[in-house]
């Protein structure tokens, strides 16, 4: 099964499950894996964080066969402390499936020409056409092999262009060759100011032209960047660098705007040190710049991916107002990307697990989605104050001895006094518990075993306390 005009391209896919499962949320960390794979073959295509592909033919010949190459890559990536799976097949689609075949630590190699047989038993849903995934099983075509057995002309007639694409995939033909990212080519764009720019305005103006150049360079190679790094270097050697989310969505003007925010944010922090008494804060940073002015501005595209013509940012259900986005980005320029977050309700039993904070501008799904039943979750009403790190506390009975909870959830004596980390003792007037919680005992790393209490103190304050390993911790306050 070879495409017209030569042998099928052999493709090797490296798949790291950590990114797919969300246990490694930082896409930047994948860059290390990509750099490592680049040592085997300089032309790497990053499909998404967690998955990258190389053409296997050349490197396999050099490293003594596809199996040897795959095992070398697995070993090298394992040295980083990252688990990965490798698949080799004709074409990208089959290689991705091969990489996902559960056979940890071993490479799955589909022999040349055997792609169609390899694909045949897989369900049709994998062909990536949601409509067909629904329709084909109802027509009695459950597997990729059954679909591939249809004549190509019939597939086009019945299912249109989506059907044609899916049919090509099912026959082991890839719709496109690999688009590797040019790792050696420097796609950054920079401009030197000589003499150094004293004002922010000319820098912002130059940034627009610079961003246009960078975008043209990327577009010429069919690439987009996930993030752009803006680097500003002063004449006296001071440097300020910030990452901005790009996703191929920012216009040149928008990049220039971010340069302006970055400069304004920098000035705001500078003012803190020097002139906080006379100018506590300033709304715009368009005045002169000290430190000898700005000598260099550089835009560095980061995490290059294939440009797919993405149009809209996915910012959750609520579209973000332009004014709000501007304000949030200004604050991010001052305090850093992670400083402005949006809360996302997630699933969980305790008060801390029920919320995931996502940096503004990032799209993320909670590890455990909300809206599922969580038997044993904390009953309503929810506490108004949830400490990100539980505060240590002491709870004693009437005689002053610390209250303990046995393995069978029995308390040593009714709690009578409460003191949260160094604060004065408060008499407990009513309490409820213990409610034992034993979570994820099958996974030692994230398992926990606790007993929860609700305590109401004499001043009317209500607390959510927990006993873990004999220690009292205050998780939340209801007031």
């Amino acid at each position, binding site marked *: 099964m070879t495409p017209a005009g030569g042998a099928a391209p052999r493709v090797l896919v490296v798949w790291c499950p950590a990114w797919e499962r969300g246990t490694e949320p930082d896409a930047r960390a994948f860059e290390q894996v990509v750099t490592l794979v680049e040592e085997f073959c300089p032309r790497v295509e990053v499909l998404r964080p967690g998955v990258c592909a190389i053409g296997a033919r050349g490197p396999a010949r050099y490293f003594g066969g596809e199996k040897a190459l795959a095992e070398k890559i697995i070993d090298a990536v394992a040295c980083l402390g990252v688990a990965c799976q490798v698949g080799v097949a004709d074409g990208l689609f089959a290689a991705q499936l091969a990489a996902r075949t559960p056979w940890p630590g071993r490479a799955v190699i589909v022999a040349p020409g055997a792609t169609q047989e390899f694909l045949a038993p897989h369900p049709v849903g994998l062909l990536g056409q949601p409509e067909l995934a629904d329709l084909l099983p109802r027509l009695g075509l459950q597997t990729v092999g059954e679909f591939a057995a249809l004549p190509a002309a019939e597939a086009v007639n019945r299912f249109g262009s989506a059907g044609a694409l899916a049919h090509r995939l099912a026959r082991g033909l890839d719709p496109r060759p690999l688009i590797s990212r040019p790792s050696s080519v420097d796609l950054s764009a920079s401009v030197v100011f000589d003499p150094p720019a004293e004002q922010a305005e000319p820098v912002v103006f130059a940034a627009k032209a610079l961003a246009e150049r960078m975008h043209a360079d990327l577009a010429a190679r069919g690439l987009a960047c996930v993030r752009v790094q803006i680097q500003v270097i002063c004449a006296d050697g001071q440097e300020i660098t910030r990452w901005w989310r790009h996703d191929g969505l920012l216009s040149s003007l928008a990049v220039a705007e971010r340069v302006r925010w970055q400069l304004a944010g920098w000035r705001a922090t500078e003012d803190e040190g020097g002139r906080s008494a006379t100018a506590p804060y300033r709304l715009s940073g368009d005045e002169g710049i000290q430190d000898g002015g700005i000598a260099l501005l550089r835009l560095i595209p980061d995490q290059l991916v294939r440009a797919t013509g993405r149009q809209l940012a996915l910012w959750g259900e*609520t579209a973000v107002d332009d004014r709000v986005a501007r304000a949030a980005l200004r604050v991010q320029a001052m305090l850093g990307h992670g400083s402005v977050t949006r809360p996302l309700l997630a699933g969980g039993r305790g008060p801390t697990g*029920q*919320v995931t904070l996502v940096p503004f501008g990032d799209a993320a799904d909670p590890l455990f989605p909300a809206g599922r039943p969580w038997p044993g979750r904390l009953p309503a009403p929810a506490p108004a104050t949830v400490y990100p790190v539980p505060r240590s506390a002491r709870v004693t009975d009437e005689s002053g001895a610390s209250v303990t909870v046995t393995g069978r959830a029995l308390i040593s004596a009714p709690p009578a006094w409460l003191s949260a980390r160094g604060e004065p003792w408060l008499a407990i007037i009513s309490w409820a518990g213990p409610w034992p919680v034993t979570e994820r005992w099958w996974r030692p790393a994230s398992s926990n075993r606790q007993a929860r209490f609700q305590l109401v103190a004499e001043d009317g304050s209500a607390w959510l306390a927990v006993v873990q390993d004999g220690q009292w911790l205050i998780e939340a306050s209801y007031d």
Partner: protein
Amino acid sequence: MVRWGDAVRPGDVIRPGDVIRPGDVILPGDAVLPVLPALRKLLPGGGLHRGSVVATGDWGLLCLALVAGASAAGAWCAVIGLPYLGVVAAADAGLDPDRVLLIADPGPGWPQVVASLLDGCELVLLRPPDRPSASVRRRLEATVRRLGGVLVVAGDWDGAQTRLLVADQEWAGIGAGHGRLRARRVQVLAYGRGAAARLRARWLWLPGPDGSVTVADEIGAARFRPGTRSTG
């Protein structure tokens, strides 16, 4: 219609073409941001006046209840300096978590952060990391007035137009070793400046059994009476 010489009262809607005296504050759109129905009678004008500062004495569910009504009506809310905000409680009170920006640690330059966020969000809930100087305070008040937002301070604020505080509270549903926290009955006092100087008091369920905020009448209070103890 507001004409020359008329005092602009809180709650007046000023439209293009109206004549305003120099020094009067012109507010875009409705002059008042909506609040939860239970809080309407506490606040002069029945809502949060745009361009005003509301102080609540201390951090607590009352702050969340104050901003929940406007958030549910579509306003964006920035929460500054409160890393321990209980988002679930906020959502139960009516706050829309999709329209919330959290700035847990605004750092020493927090007045600049507040000013930047007032530019984008109609509501800013702030717990000042330190006591602001009078000049910083006045600058921020001017920014609030200029941009027509509402600054809710979880703490004290000298120039606040309205102050609210929890005078009395009592948890219901929990006893000595039995039951669980079900609802809290609180007495909220509100007083303002000028025309709104009258002291207003109201008993509220804050929170009610499902986390919502409702007016506590005597019937509702009686329902939770068994099993409660006065908390003084």
